[in-house]
């Protein structure tokens, strides 16, 4: 049933115009993602997995089709509404961490909260909780350059969950990490699903990383294959 799904996708198509040619990134994709699911989205380069992730996260728009996230059709929201919606409902984790280099770990985590109505002490409290969840309370005042890759990615995870979104999207979150750090990060994501009930959608090339998911799906040439 749709009510149990956090994401419901129907007949999603995305075409890119490259000069005179239309390139199909997604072709009539339909998919349901249940709440508290850890979905590993796999596929070769150019298969459309990142495009699908972007549409679900509200940073890209499909050519046609429907994408309901927590009951909201994100394809119908305008730019400003989408920005608000992303801030409140989606946590982002990127391959290259993308922390702001001049801000400390705590300040990076606090960034999404600057858009909320929370006062300073409330923000600090949430930041502390998020950093504790990823095991980096003692690194709060460190700048990104003072952290290891794994620690940086855990700060990025803390930033993704500080607004307490139900959905976390991760685009190759272990792509820039050594195997030990990757295990740590995946462990954190796994516990977020188990302990906090977060829904996680992760794009990955790595079967070992995908094995941490509760479900794996494959995309090839813009179509779901499994």
């Amino acid at each position, binding site marked *: 049933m749709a009510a149990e799904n956090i994401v419901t996708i129907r007949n999603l198509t995305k075409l890119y115009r490259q000069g005179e040619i239309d390139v199909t990134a997604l072709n009539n994709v339909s998919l349901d993602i249940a709440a508290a699911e850890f979905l590993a989205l796999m596929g070769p380069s150019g298969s459309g997995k990142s495009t699908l992730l*972007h549409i679900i996260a509200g940073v*890209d728009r499909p050519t046609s089709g429907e994408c309901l996230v927590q009951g909201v059709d994100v394809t119908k929201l305008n730019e*400003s509404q989408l*920005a608000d919606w992303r801030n409140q409902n989606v946590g*982002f984790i990127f391959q290259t961490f993308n922390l702001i280099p*001049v*801000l400390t770990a705590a*300040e990076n985590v606090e960034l999404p909260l*600057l858009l909320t109505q929370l006062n300073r002490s409330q923000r600090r409290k949430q930041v502390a909780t998020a950093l504790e969840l990823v095991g980096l309370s003692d690194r709060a005042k460190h700048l990104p350059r003072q952290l290891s890759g794994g620690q940086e990615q855990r700060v990025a995870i803390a930033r993704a969950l500080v607004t307490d979104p139900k959905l976390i999207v991760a685009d190759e979150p272990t792509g820039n990490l050594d195997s030990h750090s990757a295990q740590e990060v995946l462990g954190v994501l796994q516990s977020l699903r188990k302990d906090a009930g977060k829904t996680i959608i992760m794009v990955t090339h790595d079967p070992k990383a995908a094995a941490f998911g509760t479900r794996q799906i494959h995309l090839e040439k813009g179509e779901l294959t499994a």
Partner: protein
Amino acid sequence: MTISTFIVKNALRNKRRAFLSVSSVAASLFLLVTLQVALRELTQPPESSGAELRVAVRNKISLTNPLPARQRAIIEKIPGVEGVTPFTWFGGKYKGEEGMSFAQFAVDPKALGTVFSDAKMDAAGYKNFNEQKDSCVLGKITAEKYHLKVGDRFVLDSTVYPGSLTFRVAGIYSGTPDDRNMLFRQDYLDDSLGVPGQVGMWWLKVKFADDMPRVTAAVNQAFENTSAEVRAESERAFQLGFLAMLGNIKALVASISTVVVFTLVLVTASTMSMAVRERFRELAILKALGFRRRELFAFILAESFGLSAFGAIIGIGVAYCAYTFGDIGKMTHGIFVTFEVTPRIIGFSALVAAVLGIVSAIAPSLAVARMSVVNGLKTLD
């Protein structure tokens, strides 16, 4: 952390660039203030009290052509004229100096207090000046510069008349916009150099400001069709006419100011564009995190405005302090006596800085507004 902390940290991210940007804005605004003050001083010279009652009468052909002394009697008879004095340029150099560092004029000592009432001097000074033919009165600045006091004697070599004259200091005056001039007696010049019957020009004082148009017309009319036709005009008109001889300084200064501002816009816009281009990835992330276009625009605008404002405070502040507390006479080798940074000039310069901050933010803000999150994110991986 607050939004303002975030903006400040971003602005100071590249400290060298921030320092250079602020310095370029500061230097340009210092130059802009200097040009504006110079323009003001040149085109609107300070007015002395009593200027509204003074009339300058010069030869209609040219300021350098003398006037016959006999005109005085005719001028004095014109109703509304309170006092008349000759005013003859001497062009003297002090103790073999290369150039003239102060002006000297021959006047009538009896009319001095009436026509140039803004020159304040003690009664003894006026008395000495009236009684001693070789005496002179000195502006306070010149007296201090040459350490001259009442009773001292000094020699001036004229560049206009042959020979030199020795003068005795009768008094020291102050209170005029330019306390540098030296005034001595016309009869001393006449007697010593054997050129009686000629003066450089006339200064006269009318009784009431309302008399000014009538008196100037009457003076002009009195010498029409004579061998020495005159042009009588208010002190203000005379000063502006004098300045007009220097050429179109206003246009020149305005052109330089425009170039300064334009260059400043290019420098600041280039700095902001570089700063934003470096952070394109991060701005895309901020967009993904939920920051809207208007918030990102506000960040860029605040940063650009902040750099401009900081530069403006330094540039305008340094100019204000230098020209208010510094010795402008020494700095400009006597070209300017006053160099006032007026509130209007401060306001204009601050406005230029503010507009600069806004204009510089436009191009990078548009680039960020046009950037889709996906395209921004694509640059990440």
